[in-house]
């Protein structure tokens, strides 16, 4: 049977990809941010997951505002990166696993998560940058990667509680897949930041650090907050942190905290890396 070895969180801001592409990861600005990924990279190298389910949001590459699915799952053999408008060279295509994806889609719908299935899905920086930060940049990626997009751009967006429940349903879906695959779930985005408005530049380090600890030990804590509460405290784009709840919901209740790294500011955000391990692996 497939099993979930653990979950990892990562920021997915465009600047991360640019820093990697431009060889700036060891400059004074970036060094502490990127060095803090090393233990996460080591953990992945040690446990060698077969599949990464990447929970992220699209920023207007695959989806336009004509149709905005709340939750959308890639169900294809491959996923292409593409020009997001900045004329950057796309990274190599990612290999998916269609039979696995369709199994996940079926099991999610059975559990009343009526997910949007995508047989073509272009993946943007939200998907690409966490993979690059955790596995490096490759022409042939060392991991099969499946996009799970959450709408956190156009409100109404789902609640933190809904995301946690999706994670729990995702766990059942993955664990019912008959092949012996090792799966890691990435929760991307966050943490506190606001890009627009007179309040742009908001970062709340204290709330971020409380969130880091509670996501590991008591994820229900985060579900007490409405989306308005979260935006008021952590900024309009801080709402992305609800995607971490999908990752957390997919893990067992008590997890081992393998690694905890926080840095602020990076670009406009507080950035957190958590490696949470399912102890049965």
């Amino acid at each position, binding site marked *: 049977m497939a099993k979930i070895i653990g979950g990892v969180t990562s920021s997915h801001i465009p600047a991360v990809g640019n820093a990697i592409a431009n060889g700036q990861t060891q400059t004074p600005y970036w060094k502490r941010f990127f060095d803090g990924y090393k233990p996460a990279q080591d953990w992945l190298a040690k446990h060698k997951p077969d599949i990464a389910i990447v929970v992220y949001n699209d920023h*207007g590459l695959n989806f336009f*505002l004509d149709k905005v699915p709340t939750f959308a799952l890639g169900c294809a053999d491959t996923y292409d990166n593409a020009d997001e408008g900045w004329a950057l060279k796309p990274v190599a295509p990612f290999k998916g696993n269609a039979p696995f994806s369709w199994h996940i889609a079926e099991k999610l719908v059975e559990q009343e998560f009526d997910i949007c299935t995508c047989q073509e899905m272009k993946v943007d920086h939200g998907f690409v940058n966490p993979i690059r930060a955790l596995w490096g940049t490759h022409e042939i990626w060392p991991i099969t990667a499946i996009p799970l997009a959450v709408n956190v751009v156009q*409100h*109404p967006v789902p609640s933190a509680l809904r995301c946690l429940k999706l994670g729990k349903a995702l766990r059942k879906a993955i664990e019912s897949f008959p092949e012996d695959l090792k799966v890691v779930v990435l929760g991307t985005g966050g943490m506190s930041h606001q890009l627009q408005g007179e*309040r742009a530049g908001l970062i709340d380090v204290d709330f971020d650090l409380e969130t880091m600890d509670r996501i590991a030990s008591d994820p229900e804590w985060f579900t007490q907050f409405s*989306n308005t509460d979260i935006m*008021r405290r952590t900024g309009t784009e801080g709402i992305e942190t609800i995607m971490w709840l999908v990752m957390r919901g997919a893990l067992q209740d008590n997890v081992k905290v393998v690694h905890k790294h926080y840095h*602020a500011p990076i670009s406009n955000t507080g950035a957190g890396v958590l490696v949470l391990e399912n102890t049965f692996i």
Partner: protein
Amino acid sequence: MSSWTKHDYEDIPGTYVFDGKHAHDSYALNKLLFSFCEQANRDEFDADPAAYCDKYGVQGKFKEFVLKQDFLGMLKAGANIYYMAKMAIPRGTSVQDCGAKMQGITTPEFQAKLTAKGQGLEEKLKARGGYWNG
């Protein structure tokens, strides 16, 4: 037409939540901005910006903002920040530049405010415990 439903996030200071009303009112503008994912569309726009606006139904103040490359105006009129960035970044205006303008400060001042948010971080991490720190 009915009135738009009010939301409790509307009183968050200095904050514009991109919701149905914004998405509805700025739809044509965001569609034009989204089209810039394609190089051919960027070239077509550059050849005749006004005609490109007309093609996408971008009119009135929205058209004015596009033609003047007034990114702040676009944002205030309801452009989504991610879509706006597709036009602004290649033209030398970063998201941080827009944030600074919103506050009436320079970009270096905006960046200095961000950097200040990280002051005392390592002490905070030590006090909490369990954090990687090199």
